């Protein structure tokens, strides 16, 4: 019943503090049991649907999700590739939510970032390493720009960030399809009579190197960018003045202002920064896995990243496992689809698994609150010795 319940990172703190070392083991056992139960249920439901929908066996779901995400080296690599952009977006979202801002527009910011990145990648001259750098920077800038609109509306006109970022997602999608539909903008320049609504493929030398090769473990070097960012963000939040003030702002804007934190600058900055991360991850996808701009380029990565951040609460480190989880879901889901299981079933499976992942900690929480109440009732029933009342008015 303390703030800890609201702030995940702190939750762990108090929980372990409260826990006598003895029942630590029991606690873990319960957790394991719950998680198994939750995921089992989710997979069972999915399997059921699969049986109804297709002639595939229920086992398909289990094995395919596993095979596609973790079994082989290639699969693990793919999981990392999928997790990378989710992680980068997630880090940004964590920064925003630390400042008490919920930016649900990473999807759009990612798209715009990818667009600016594409523009640079296709037009900038110079040594490959330089152009790659510029491309990523351009991506970040694009994302920041798009988030900047929301920031501007918020801090000049007081427009709610949740809704403006939400709407900007839709607008971003139209911007992209406009850009890739115009030969004089980013539309591809092929000899084909019919041009598709997509940009040209970025040249080989601009594509981030991959390490290892199929069928072994192979992964885009983008993963290192993400890793580096995790370290930097985590450290800055924990140790820097900036992190301190960000936290202050998130928890109590008034006190923050009194203490010299400008809500507009700090909050706006955090929002821009989260946009920049989304845009950067757009640039990373462009140079790392997708290589050209198309409508639907973002593939829901923005939303996955946001979810990752929200599930991780305000903790940048916690984003890592969550992002990996989403990466595995995406990789496994793709493979599941390729076994002939219809796409929409894959989506169902993924959604169910997310809910399954949410369930256990929350459930334990609820159980704890219920238990406290029961104890109180019990305590009340045990009659305590009646005290003799001192100095009672006769």
């Amino acid at each position: 019943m303390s703030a800890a319940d609201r702030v995940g990172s702190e939750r762990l703190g108090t929980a372990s503090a409260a826990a006598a070392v003895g029942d630590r083991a029991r606690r873990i056992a319960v957790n394991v049991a719950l998680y198994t139960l939750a995921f089992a249920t989710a997979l069972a439901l999915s399997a059921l649907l699969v049986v109804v929908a297709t002639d595939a066996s229920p086992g398909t779901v289990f094995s395919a999700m596993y095979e596609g995400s973790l079994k082989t080296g290639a699969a693990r690599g793919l999981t990392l590739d999928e997790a990378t952009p989710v992680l980068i977006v997630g880090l940004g979202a964590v920064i925003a939510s630390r400042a008490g801002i919920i930016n649900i527009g990473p999807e759009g910011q990612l798209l715009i970032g990818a667009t600016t990145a594409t523009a640079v990648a296709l037009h900038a001259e110079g040594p490959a390493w330089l152009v790659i750098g510029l491309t990523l920077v351009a991506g970040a800038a694009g994302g920041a720009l798009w988030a900047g609109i929301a920031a501007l509306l918020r801090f000049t006109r007081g427009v709610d960030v949740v809704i403006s970022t939400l709407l900007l997602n839709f607008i971003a999608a139209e911007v992209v399809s406009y850009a890739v539909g115009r030969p004089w903008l980013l539309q591809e320049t092929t000899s084909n009579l019919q041009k598709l609504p997509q940009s040209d493929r970025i040249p080989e030398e601009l594509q981030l190197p991959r390490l290892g090769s199929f069928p072994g473990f192979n992964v885009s070097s983008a993963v290192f960018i993400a890793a580096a960012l995790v370290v930097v963000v985590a450290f800055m939040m924990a140790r820097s003045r900036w992190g301190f003030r960000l936290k202050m702002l998130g928890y109590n804007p008034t006190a923050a202002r009194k203490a010299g934190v400008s809500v507009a600058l700090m909050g706006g900055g955090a929002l821009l920064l989260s946009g920049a991360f989304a845009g950067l991850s757009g640039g990373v996808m462009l140079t790392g896995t997708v290589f050209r701009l198309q409508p639907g380029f973002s593939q829901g990565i923005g939303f996955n990243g946001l979810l990752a951040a929200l599930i991780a609460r305000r903790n940048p480190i916690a984003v890592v496992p969550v992002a990996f989880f989403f990466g595995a879901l995406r990789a496994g889901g793709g493979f599941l689809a390729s076994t002939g299981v219809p796409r929409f079933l894959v989506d169902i499976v993924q959604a169910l698994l997310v809910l399954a992942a949410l369930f256990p900690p929350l459930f334990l929480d609820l159980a704890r609150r219920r238990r406290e109440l029961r104890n109180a009732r019990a305590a009340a029933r045990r009659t305590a010795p009646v005290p003799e009342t001192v100095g009672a008015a006769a």
Partner: protein
Amino acid sequence: MNDLTTILSSAVRLTAPLAFAGSGEYVAERSGTLNISIEAMLLAGAFFGILGTSVFGNVALGLAVGTLAGLVVAVIHANFSHRLAANTFVVGLTLNVLLLGLTSFLLETIDMTPKQAGEIEIPVLKEIPVLGEALFVNRWPIYLLLVVVPVAWYVVARTRWGLEVRACGEDPQAADVTGIDVNARRRQSLYFCGLCAGLGGAYLSVAQVGLFNQNMTAGRGFIVNAAVIFGGWRLGGTIAGCFLFGAADAMRLALPALGYDINPQLLIAGPYVLALVAMMFFAKRNRAPAALAVPFERGLK
């Protein structure tokens, strides 16, 4: 038929599903839930509405089934975020994915013979120039709005339940101290929202289109979220916001036919841009429920 009437009646049709859902979302947000699974609720309503008509061969029953479907989604969302204290955005976004998948899946596995609601004309009134056509010649379920909106208004503004709901949206801690079960109220108002949104979805498929196809709500839920905020958390404003979006959509769809050649992307982005611009002017004036999207946990503060 003159152009204005064309746009107007199209606007009315496009507004209706938003208005149904909007009335619900208005209540949910007054209780402090920024509910983005409304898209899922609409979609559920749309599919099961149609399913209902083809099972019972009756439009009214279809609408009822759709309404209940919306409620079911709400029950899941409410219990995850207001009993288990899961982040409402996480649950919402996930439910949107889940329902999109589920309805598509069922659409493939079940084959249906949908029925569409009939059109009714209100005699005299429909003669009114310009407006008449638009307002008084419609498929009958649209007139359910005349029940839903006032009810939404009444329960929030006039009943004890509504008072408590507003209290939960403004200051859950204080509400709790005075003995209101905050999370229960928030769950209940989500249920109400689910019913309204479900009906809205059912209207879309059963009345307006006459069949269901994948993802047929196509982001309307998010528009509803925008409409409530645009409307300054007042029912009147919310409805106005829904109409704004409906009209903008009608415009963009009608303009080509009326011989204006405007870039499609621009037209499609139009309503969203409009919403942003509109909020630029109204945002300062309107106050959101103080505890909107703030989870309630006993013993804070």
